[in-house]
């Protein structure tokens, strides 16, 4: 057991934080500059995962399993979200024959 703990500690926590920040920012930038809704959804997943990574890292470094349970719940919610999101995508494709996110502006008011 000690080996594992020392092994984990060889990488400082900051690096995990930076990594997840970078991943999150990439996902964010992608969500901003792509117009294909399905890619935006994927970017969302990417952001979810960066957060998950961060949570897992903190959980490990703080020896608290709650963080990992949180990750588990985030996965649950992400799965549900993707289901609905993709269903909306299908609807959208069927109704306006496009997956361009700007086509959704008719939901405006």
């Amino acid at each position: 057991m000690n080996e594992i703990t020392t092994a984990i500690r060889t990488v400082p926590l900051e690096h995990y934080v930076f990594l997840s920040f970078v991943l999150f920012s990439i996902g964010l930038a992608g969500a901003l500059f792509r117009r294909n809704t399905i890619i935006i959804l994927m970017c969302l997943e990417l952001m979810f995962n960066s957060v998950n990574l961060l949570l897992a890292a903190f959980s490990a470094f703080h020896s608290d399993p709650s963080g990992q349970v949180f990750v588990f719940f985030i996965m649950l919610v992400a799965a549900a979200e993707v289901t609905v999101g993709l269903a909306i995508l299908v609807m959208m494709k069927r109704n306006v024959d496009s997956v361009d996110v700007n086509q959704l502006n008719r939901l405006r008011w």
Partner: protein
Amino acid sequence: MVSFEQLAHLSWLVPAFPLAGALVNAALRRKLGANGSGALATLLVAASFVVSALLFWSHRPEEHPVEVVTLFDWIHVGGMSIPFAFQIDALSLTMMLIVTGVGMLIHLYSIGYMHDDPRVASFFAMLNLFTFAMLLLVMGANYLITFIGWEGVGLCSYLLIGFWYTNPAYNYAARKAFVMNRIGDVGVVLALALLFHLFGTLDYTAVLGRAGGFGVGNPLIVGATLLLFVGAMGKSAQIPLFTWLPDAMAGPTPVSALIHAATMVTAGIFLVVRSSVLFELAPFTKDVILAIGTATALLAASIGLFQNDIKKVLAYSTVSQLGYMFAALGLGAYSAGMFHVTTHAFFKALLFLGAGSVIHALGGEQDIRKMGGLKGVTKITYITFLIGTLAIAGIFPFSGFFSKDGILANAYAHSPVVYALLLFGALLTAFYMFRLLFLVFHGRYRGDRRPHESPAVITIPLIVLAVLSLGGGLLNLPHVFGGHEPMKHYLATAADGVAGEHLHLEAATEWILMGLSTVLVLLTAWYAYGRFAKRTTLDGEPADMPFLKRLIAEKWRIDELYATLFEKPYGWLSTTLFTFGENKVMTPLMNGVGNVTLRAGKVVRRLQTGNASFYLFAMVAGIIVFLLLTLYGV
């Protein structure tokens, strides 16, 4: 024999009787019948009169001038304690006797006069209610109780002027009376608030007792007295608030006699005499009163010259006589003023009732151009009316001679100019009264109805009042006739202002003044006889008259002036405030609150483009801003 103190504790009975009469008559309108309700009302007022008379006889002014009877605490807040209390003293007893005595006679008269009216019970209820209010007015031990009566008589006056309510003109006259009285009441309420502010109480004994602490001419006292006088102007029909009284003749004639001649309109004089201590401290107010009283006396007398409605002539005569009383008060001759109140109550009630008898005899005709030669048919009415006319004209030995002479003597002592003006007014009075007398009773009958003498229930009060008008002068017989001015001495025990009166005239001067006025009045009467006694033709309409005469005949067009100055602008203001102020300014102002929200919504809505990328950008920007804010917080 019960003592005065014991009797005084029963003084609440005096107003209670008429109040009971009013309630019973109002409740049992249908069941009593015309004579029943009239008899009930008259008897109850007579009971009040009896109690008043008992009080008067047991009253020993030298030993026990004032008795205050407290019934209960009325208004009690913080430092304000206003009891419901009656004050029995010389002044209130004098007024109580006038109110109940004359009132009783007029109630009796009304039984005959109103006999055929379907709402006779209501009439007597209101008349009783009026008596009740008037008694409260004169008996109150503090200003606020007096004010109850003050407003109460105003209400009864309103109700009785508009007694025949199907006639819109009568209703208008009633409302006019009430509103003008109310304008005066503004003055009274403010005066009471000011007096309370100054003295911390409204009890007459306390206020008048402490008033000496203020110097003569103290501006607050002057203000309070001026405000009180504004109230008196409204109630007693002085310039500029006098126009309601002639219109008030719309009411039944007994009402005119009781309310608008004998009692209510003298309430203003009563109030001033009651507060005479305060008025003595305010010379400026007294000058104002003198000026307004004299002006009213002359103006009203001039209007009386050309009136053709028998009651209107008497109404303007009342206004004019009230002007005399106020002139007396302005001169500081309070006892002379009160004396004139008393004699005026006798002879003016007599004249009104006589006029009522004539109107009754002619079946409702009020235009003197359609009368004439009635002295043969209505003998008692004629004789009593003649006595009344002689009394008001001021011919020896009728009561009016003494009371008017008292005022004139005081005026002469004050200033010959005032004396000359008042004397001129007296001549005008003599002229229009004799004109009235001659046009109604002398000459040839010009109408087309069959006149008849009134029944005894109408003539008995006339006779009683005629006796009083004849002998009323004895109440205050001046020294030059060997009297001791008993009324003055009596009132001096109640009103310090009366006690402070001083009139220094040589006996010779007094004789000359009396002689002068008597001769001039007789000359005027003779002139009137020459002009009107044989009159057979009718006067023309005002439109045909020369300018000044027409102006006077049209009452100086004061009603029209008020209509243009106040009534129409007020109506316009009311309409405009509603259509413009309310609908164009206020409501849009409130709707503006909603409209701002709507407009703001329209502007902000542009941000909602529906473009999801834009939302994302905005969200990111927001997150960045918030993070930076928390990091490098403001």
